[in-house]
């Protein structure tokens, strides 16, 4: 549908065109005036669309049907005006709303829009008046002087705008200069001097034309000449003069020139200038004066019109020249170092002097000439030295010397430098020596002594633990009271010494240590404990080396804390290397570290931990000694008690043993009478016979039955005993020390223990005796064992048990069981063997018994061959010795009386202990 309408429209369009073709080759149905207008931005504009009469008839179209369009946008109808049947106008109040193309269209049949005509519209601005016109004549060669003029072209016009530089003489014009590529400058290739030229700029475009204000000038007044060339520098006769010569590239009739000459020392960046008034006239050479001898200078020159109208040329290329040598202006600064290790009579003097600075040397120093004069003796000759280095070491006898040094170059010799080396630095030193850092320099100041000082020598050196102090030095005039030291490194310690030099001697040096800049120490001190107590610890540390300090150590700070406690801080004087921490908690882990502080910060050393002691010094002693003493006292008291109450004790623990000889059993043996003599130490009854008693009883065979019945309750005891020692030691262990005490303490608890010990003794003795010696009378001894005593006291108990032969047998069986290996023979036979034993054997036995317990004399055992004596010995040897003997002897008869009754039960009881 839509496409069909398009086709129809196109066909109509074709018709219209054909129609126009018929009217003429280029005739269309209408046209717009003006054709392709150029409009000023912001102005108003009216266009007319005029229809051709011919088309009116054909297409039946009229001006009222005209539609104006800008690009594809229809212009509002309000801006249209139908002037007559064929003409329609459109008016725009502001051209800025316009765009290209503006078309005139017609609405044919009220439906189809047909383009009639279109125009291109250009909108722009008229040129502004060019401003700031200025010109300069650049000299390009000796005869080429193009003039370049520049101006401000003003605002952008959006149109093609032509700029023309116009110039003319009063009555003659020149062709315009038309700029290429730019719109703000133009160069006139050839210019004529000395005739006033009027110059202006004309800007023109489709909308108008504008001219700048004219510039009237003589081009000679705006010349920037070429700089002089072929500059050459020649040294003159004088060492302070250099002569410059050059060529000008502008001839004198054209322009008279004045000049600027600048120069600098080679390597320096600051230019100096020859006073302009000296070079204000035309010339081609100039002598620069007041230069330093033997110095390389760089020169450069420029020129301009003499009257100062115009422009300076560029600076010429630089040329260098060197002034000739001159005598050194001053003597080299001189100083000495006298070796500290000089002998009494001779000095090693190092004379040192500084090479002159280039501006002082005024040339190449060929040599130094030194003279040394001994002032103390007038007759001594002048010593002369010519050296090329800057030091000289001399061995001189002690004295006062005057040293002079002269520097010589090819132009001559310097004035002499004189140094007086006095025998001693006895004069007044400087006062109030101090330092102050100033940026990268260290200022050293002092207060002058009262007397007149010729000059000062300032020595300084870097103090380091790694290297020696290499002395640097410099001199200062006598009227100054401070200098700046250069080349001082920050964070390093310097030792600075100032010596005043007088006309007749030298003051002693005053020293000060200084830092240019301080930093915090490079490490902290390592702290250690020297001694740790209960509440205090002695800390010790080493000073930081001077290289580590980086500044003056103002203080040390000790920081210590327990693991969970607060840190405690102590500040310590920097001169100390030891400090005692007090009020510490005992037996506590402390962490301590140490910080060294300079003015600029501090640094901590490594942590160190220590633990305080649990007890203070002497505390253990204070506890242990009284305890020991108390223990000893108790022992003593116990012993005394035992001694005092021995009767009682004896009664309870060691009751009287009945005399076997008086026993009824004695009657069983034919040797009874012999036993009566046992107290008289009859050899027939040695101690071995006592042991035999037990042995005799160990006849019973039924060991099993015994162990089943009676042994059980004593199992624990048995074990203890059996683990403790062999039989012989059992005797010892139960003797003296242990047995009595045990008896005392155990007596209250029950008889079992007492009995045990006593019984053990017996039984053990018997056993040993049995093995080593030949038993004699078995029966008699067996009746005298302790069970008898028990039977006295506990008659009722024994009676209850006494009848049991089986028990008795068990007991013996037990005893015998221990000796099973060698107890093949009946015990009776063995006891008999004892009687045959020689006396030596017996003695050996006694010894054996006693050896572990005391130093009882051998003779004691010898005297007491009776069993009682042996017993008492065993019991009390360590405490009482022989004094016990009479009593034991006396006791025997007592027990003898009661013996028969208790014999059997006794064996039963003994059986309970025998398992040992």
């Amino acid at each position: 549908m839509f496409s069909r309408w398009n086709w129809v429209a196109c066909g109509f369009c074709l018709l219209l065109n054909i129609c126009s073709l018929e009217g003429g080759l280029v005739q269309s149905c209408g046209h717009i005036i003006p054709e392709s207008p150029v409009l000023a931005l912001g102005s108003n504009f009216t266009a007319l669309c005029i229809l051709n009469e011919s088309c009116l008839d054909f297409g039946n179209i009229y001006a009222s049907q005209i539609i104006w369009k800008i690009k594809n946008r229809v212009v509002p109808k309000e801006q249209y005006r139908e002037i007559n049947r064929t003409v329609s106008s459109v008016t725009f109040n502001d051209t800025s709303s316009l765009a290209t193309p503006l078309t005139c269209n017609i609405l044919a049949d009220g439906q189809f829009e047909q383009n009639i005509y279109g125009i291109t519209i250009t909108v722009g601005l008229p040129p502004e008046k060019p401003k700031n016109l200025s010109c300069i004549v650049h000299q390009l060669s000796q005869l080429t002087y193009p003039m370049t003029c520049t101006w401000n072209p003003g605002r952008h016009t959006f149109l093609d705008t032509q700029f023309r530089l116009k110039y003319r003489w009063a009555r003659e014009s020149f062709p315009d200069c038309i700029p290429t590529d730019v719109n703000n400058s133009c160069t006139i290739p050839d210019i004529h001097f000395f005739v006033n030229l009027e110059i202006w700029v004309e800007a023109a475009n489709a909308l108008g034309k504008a001219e700048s204000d004219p510039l009237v000038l003589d081009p000679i007044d705006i010349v920037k000449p070429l700089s002089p060339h072929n500059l050459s520098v020649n040294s003159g006769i004088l060492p302070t003069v250099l002569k410059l010569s050059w060529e000008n590239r502008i001839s004198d009739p054209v322009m008279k020139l004045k000049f600027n000459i600048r120069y600098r020392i080679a390597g320096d960046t600051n230019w100096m200038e020859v006073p302009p008034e000296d070079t204000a006239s035309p010339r081609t050479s100039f002598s620069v004066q007041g230069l330093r001898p033997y110095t390389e200078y760089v020169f450069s020159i420029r020129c301009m019109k003499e009257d100062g109208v115009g422009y300076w040329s560029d600076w010429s290329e630089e040329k260098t020249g060197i002034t000739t040598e001159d005598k050194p202006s001053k003597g080299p600064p001189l100083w000495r170092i006298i070796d500290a290790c000089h002998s009494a009579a001779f000095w090693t003097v190092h004379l040192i002097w500084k090479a002159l600075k280039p501006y002082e040397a005024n040339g190449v120093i060929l040599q130094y000439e030194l003279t040394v004069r001994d002032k103390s003796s007038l007759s001594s000759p002048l010593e002369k030295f010519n050296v090329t280095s800057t030091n000289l070491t001399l061995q001189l006898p002690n004295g006062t010397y005057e040293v002079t040094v002269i520097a010589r170059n090819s132009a001559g010799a310097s004035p002499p430098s004189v140094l007086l080396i006095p025998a001693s630095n006895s004069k007044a030193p400087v006062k109030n020596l101090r330092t102050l850092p100033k940026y990268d320099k260290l200022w050293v100041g002092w207060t002058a002594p009262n007397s007149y000082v010729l000059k000062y020598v300032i020595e300084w050196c870097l103090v380091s633990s790694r290297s020696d102090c290499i002395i640097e030095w410099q001199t200062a005039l006598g009227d100054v009271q401070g200098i700046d030291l250069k080349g001082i490194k920050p964070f390093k310690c310097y030792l600075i010494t100032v010596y005043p030099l007088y006309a007749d001697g030298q003051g002693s040096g005053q020293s000060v240590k200084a830092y240019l800049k301080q930093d915090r120490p490079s490490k902290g001190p390592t702290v250690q404990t020297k001694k740790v107590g209960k509440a205090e610890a002695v800390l010790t540390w080493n000073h930081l080396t001077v290289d580590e300090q980086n500044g003056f150590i103002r203080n040390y700070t000790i920081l210590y804390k327990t693991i969970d406690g607060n840190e405690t801080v102590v500040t310590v004087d920097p001169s100390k290397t030891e400090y005692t921490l007090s009020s510490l908690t005992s037996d506590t882990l402390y962490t301590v570290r140490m910080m060294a502080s300079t003015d600029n910060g501090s640094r901590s050393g490594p942590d160190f931990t220590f633990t305080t002691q649990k007890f203070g010094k002497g505390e253990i002693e204070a506890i242990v000694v009284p305890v020991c003493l108390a223990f000893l006292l108790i022992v003593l008291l116990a012993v005394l008690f035992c001694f005092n109450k021995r009767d009682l004790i004896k009664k309870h623990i060691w009751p009287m043993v009945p005399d076997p000889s008086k026993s009824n059993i004695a009657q069983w043996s034919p040797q009874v009478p012999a036993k009566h003599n046992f107290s008289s130490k009859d050899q027939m009854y040695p101690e071995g016979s006592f042991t035999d008693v037990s042995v005799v009883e160990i006849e019973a065979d039924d060991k099993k039955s015994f162990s089943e019945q009676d042994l059980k309750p004593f199992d624990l005891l048995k074990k203890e005993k059996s683990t403790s020692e062999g039989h012989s030691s059992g005797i010892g262990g139960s003797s003296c020390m242990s047995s009595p005490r045990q008896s005392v303490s155990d007596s209250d608890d029950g008889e079992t223990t007492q009995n045990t010990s006593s019984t053990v003794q017996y039984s053990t003795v018997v056993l040993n005796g049995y093995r080593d010696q030949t038993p004699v009378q078995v029966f008699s001894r067996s009746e005298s064992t302790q069970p008898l005593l028990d039977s006295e006291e506990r008659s009722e108990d024994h009676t209850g048990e006494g009848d049991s032969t089986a028990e008795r047998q068990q007991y013996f069986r037990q005893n015998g069981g221990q000796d099973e290996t060698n107890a093949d023979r009946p015990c009776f036979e063995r006891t008999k063997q004892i009687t045959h034993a020689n006396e030596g054997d017996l003695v050996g036995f006694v010894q054996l018994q006693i050896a572990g317990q005391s130093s009882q004399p051998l003779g004691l055992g010898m005297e007491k061959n009776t069993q009682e004596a042996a017993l008492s010995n065993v019991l009390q040897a360590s405490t009482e010795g022989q004094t016990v003997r009479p009593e034991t002897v006396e006791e025997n008869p007592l027990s003898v009386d009661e013996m028969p009754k208790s014999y059997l039960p006794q064996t039963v009881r003994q059986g309970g202990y025998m398992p040992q």
Partner: protein
Amino acid sequence: GDSWGIFTFLCAALCNLPALPALNCSEELGTSQSIQQTYDLTRYLEHQLRTLAGTYLNYLGPPFNEPDFNPPRLARAERVPSATVDLDLWRGLTDNARLAANYRAYSRLLCYLRVLDGQVGTAELRHRLAHFCASLQGLVLSIGGVMSSLGYPLPAGPPAPPGAPPASNDFLKKMDDFWLLKELQTWLWRSAKDFNRLKKKVPPAVVTLRLEARGF
């Protein structure tokens, strides 16, 4: 009373000074300046001609480029205005007459020079000749300017160059060129003297007064 009167008068006089001389002198200053400028220009042209003549005579070749070449002035060369007037006679002329003579001479010389310009073969020489011609044109204008500023009437426009027949042969033509350059040199030399003299005549005192007045 009298002293007050005198003081007031002096004050008034001084107050008026800046205005009056400045107005009167602007013309004087312009003249002085243009005389100086014209003098500079003659010196500049002299300088230019010196190099130009050397180059051109070399271009003409021997014997014209020989330093002691001094040919007799031919009758046909008379059309070139001659500066060979007696110096005293020349000095006896008025400024106006001298300026007018200069003006006329340079106008004529310029015409011949432009003819010369068209014949020169080398571009470099032609360029320099053109430059010289332009400068000489400037001189004519300057002299005119000086004359008008001094209130002298400008002489009538240069008469049409006499229709002298062009030199029959090359040598004669070269001779013409030689004499043209030689006369130019003489004229420029004498003009420089003229303007120097004229420069001194126009009192610099006026300038001084003006400066003083400004300073006041």
